């Protein structure tokens, strides 16, 4: 036997379940008066710098049905590509932009719609720049471990073509699953948990 490394194991994940709203967006599901508002419900204020955009996300299961009980968290850099986090070492992010959002699917339509700003580019190890993207984390009933993916922007073709993360996707026909299509100021992003169009998820 060698010495013990004295490491712990990560706590096992369990599904967020059908009632995740009670804990994470209680006002959304009608439990009012405990917290003044739901955290992460809005990302931008008048002071936030950058190009305003709208994002519409839907999450589909393997039968093609839209999930009406999913919860998506978003994490993105500011317009300059800086994260509002103590672990950000490259500079100070826009104080009027936390970069983090939390959005439950609409219980009728399954749609998630939010306003944000287009993030700036962020470097990959070694200094090459990644294309602008929003990091997504998806939980719901039936999902045992939160799923990580990224939303890239359809009008950033040149940057997307150089992106070192997209470049890791061996099956090139899957790259479009990570690219939101632009129509006016609205980007639409459909996430498919399974099937022909299964979204690329990340082991990060």
């Amino acid at each position, binding site marked *: 036997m060698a010495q013990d490394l*004295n*490491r*712990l*194991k*990560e*706590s*096992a*994940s*369990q*599904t*967020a379940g*059908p*009632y*995740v709203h*009670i*804990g*994470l967006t*209680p006002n959304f*599901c*009608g*439990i009012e*008066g*405990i*917290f003044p508002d739901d*955290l992460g419900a809005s990302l931008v204020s008048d002071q936030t710098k950058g190009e305003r955009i709208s994002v519409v996300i839907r999450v589909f*299961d*393997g*039968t093609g049905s839209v999930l009406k009980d999913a919860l998506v968290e978003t994490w993105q*850099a500011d317009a300059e590509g800086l*994260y509002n*986090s*103590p*672990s950000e070492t490259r500079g100070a992010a826009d104080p009027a932009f936390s*970069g983090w959002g939390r959005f439950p699917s609409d219980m009728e339509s399954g749609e998630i719609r939010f306003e944000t700003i287009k993030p700036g580019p*962020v*470097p990959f190890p070694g200094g090459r720049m*990644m294309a602008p*993207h929003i*990091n997504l*984390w998806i939980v*719901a*009933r*039936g*999902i*045992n*471990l*939160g*799923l990580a993916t*990224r939303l890239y922007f359809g009008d950033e073709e040149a940057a997307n073509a150089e992106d070192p*993360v997209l470049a*890791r996707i061996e099956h090139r026909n899957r790259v479009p699953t990570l690219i939101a299509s632009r129509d006016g100021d609205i980007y639409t992003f459909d996430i498919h*948990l*399974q099937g022909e169009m*299964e*979204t*690329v*998820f*990340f*082991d*990060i």
Partner: protein
Amino acid sequence: MKNQRPETGGFFQRDRAWQPPALTPLYKTSVVRSPQKAPIAFPHTPSEITGPTFGHGILGALDNDLTLNHARSGESAIGPRIIVYGRVLDENARPVPNVLVEFWQANAGGRYRHKKDGYLAPLDPNFGGCGRTITDEDGNYSFRTIMPGAYPWPNGINDWRPAHIHFSVFGHGFVQRLITQMYFEGDPMIWKCPIVGTIPDRRAIEGLIAALDMEATVPMDARAYKFDIVLRGRRSTLFENRMEGN
């Protein structure tokens, strides 16, 4: 360890043999909600290493007391009174300070305050079912609540969830984000539950079972359960990896 550098390293690879797989047919909803292609890995960038922070200013006085935070003045939630406490640690066994911990649960009868919960157990007018807190400098958290009830759920024809509290925890990096559930020492229902059974390793399940701690119990008031949560560890930056250029 003193002289800590800023936390800027990447995180340890997640042990996917320890975590539940996506497809777990005995938990039926996972069948159409589980990705079937392998997730793609890449070295951590600022997008993974950074994460949001929450100040203590967001917390209200009763956010960590589910017995009172939805109760009428002078009343409190019905059920066995308990205190849940513990630490948020990382895989290096270091405390994770100043992170948001959120929790939600059914009432003492096993009923959630949610329009989709039609279980015939009654709602408790004095119980909302959610709370939150932020860890202190040593990673400690605690809250008061009532013991949640077990409840039946549509999966098999007679599946029941053991008594449990749902937890959502932030780390310092967005890839430390974790949602899990806490179970109670000695509950025979734990080992019959298909959701618990999604976890392949018995030791990983035992890591979600809170221990009854009579020493932390408040006499004539509330029993205490200890529940530590472990988030992914961060790689030391002592020897910077310069594989890709530079």
